[in-house]
């Protein structure tokens, strides 16, 4: 790859954001405070949203912010603050089985890399690809991809009903 090809604004942006995301992801698992871990996770998720913007996928980026930062992370923090969130370092956040996570994470990474490589290979995004508008996106979701969309909705519905069943005492 030539330097002139590598040093375009999008790539530089990508590498800066990716480095931030890696640092954030490492800090999520190494920090000794639950709330700090959740906030580092916010950095990682916001980085993902920024990468979507670089890919000109506005709608996906905005959805990422709305769902993950605005709702999921707020609920995370809400839950930890209601139950156990002390200020300062905690020593008992790790248990002795933490190394089991390592092979799982590596396997997951390998699986994703292989899937990406198989799916796209050396294909490149066209440099002057037109911006996909939200209308085109929704036409796709509610047209050819309607069945997977419904399936996902049913999974979510089942999760909601399950949560209510678990939370009700009577």
């Amino acid at each position, binding site marked *: 790859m030539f330097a002139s090809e590598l040093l375009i604004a999008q790539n530089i942006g990508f590498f800066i954001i990716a480095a931030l995301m890696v640092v954030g992801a490492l800090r999520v698992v190494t920090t000794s405070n639950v*709330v700090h871990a959740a906030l580092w996770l916010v950095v990682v998720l916001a980085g993902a949203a920024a990468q979507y913007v670089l890919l000109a996928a*506005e709608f996906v980026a905005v959805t990422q912010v709305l769902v993950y*930062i605005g*709702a999921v*992370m707020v609920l995370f923090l809400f839950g930890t603050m209601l139950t156990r969130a002390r200020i300062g370092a905690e020593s008992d956040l790790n248990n002795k089985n933490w190394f089991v996570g390592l092979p799982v994470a590596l396997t997951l990474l390998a699986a994703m890399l292989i899937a990406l490589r198989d799916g796209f290979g050396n294909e490149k995004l066209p440099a002057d690809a037109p911006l996909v508008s939200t209308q085109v996106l929704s036409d796709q979701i509610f047209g050819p991809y309607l069945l997977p969309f419904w399936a996902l909705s049913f999974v979510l519905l089942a999760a909601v009903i399950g949560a209510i069943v678990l939370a009700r005492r009577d």
Partner: protein
Amino acid sequence: MNTASLIIAEVPYWGQSLLRVLGGLVAVLLPAGTIVYLFLFKMMSFMQSRLGPMEAGPYGSMQLFAEVGKWLQKEDIYPARADKFIFKLAPLIVLASTFLLVVVVPFGPDAWFTNFEAGIFYALAVSSVSVLGILIAGWSSANKYSLLGGLRAAGQLIAYELPMVLAVIGVVIQAGTMNLQGIVLAQNSGSMFGFDGLGNPYVLTQFVGFVIFMISVQAELTQAPFDMPVAESELVSGYMTEYSGFRFLIFFIGEFATAGVFAMIASVLFLGGWAVPFSWFGWTTMDSVDNWMNFAGPLILFTKMMVIMFLVMWVRFSYPRLREDQLQRFAWKVLIPISLVNIMLTAILKVAF
């Protein structure tokens, strides 16, 4: 359309960015100052049969500068057991969410910061980021009242974000676009039952959505009757209890600047935004709008914002605080079902006509 774009095209990129930053500051701080002086200082005083600030400047109009000066002089203190970094970060997150919000508001045919395809969706998304700042402000203060205030705020803002999004969907269905300029165009070039003298402001055709949106805005801004997170008789000052000086000032500006920006978004969604009905001047499309609207537009939007803000403040000064359980029940059992029905009816009518 053309002259303004030509002027902008001659300014280099860094100059445009500087202009945008200055414009953003004006668009955030000017409404906030006006709202605080006119409504919080003066209107509240008159409704309570007193004069309000009278000493600083004519009719106390310089009072806000005096207050800002006072806050800036205060010592920067934080509780000994607080999580210092997060304590300092929290007000900045709240303020950043406000500045991100103003970016999508259109002020005229060419007077906008960015013309986002999914504009209103973006506004709803970044407005939810401020919850994060409020939540960690409450946690990092190392104070039970602050933590309770932060938790109440989070619960309330999550509950009222849903009806707000659902109320906006009605507008989006009717306009057929999520772009705020598109929504302005759809309202002002539209007609109601063949009569186009008023355009088609959605406050008339989406009245249910407007009411739900305004109630949700009231709750999102934690103004009374939805001010449990800062309930002074129960929680001292909620998540802001430990903040003083400059950091309190940031929270204060953030609160009223967000109120102003939300009022602007409400007037774009429901009152026709920066424009007047296009039939008055024989315009049909966005391109045929005369150039002077770039200067008249911000003033028209500002006027509509003040009308909306007057409603918000009127309700704020008139009603007592709801209880926590009443608030949650109201959002989940009243507002959300009504807004779902509203979406269904809007969709049916949209297809039928």
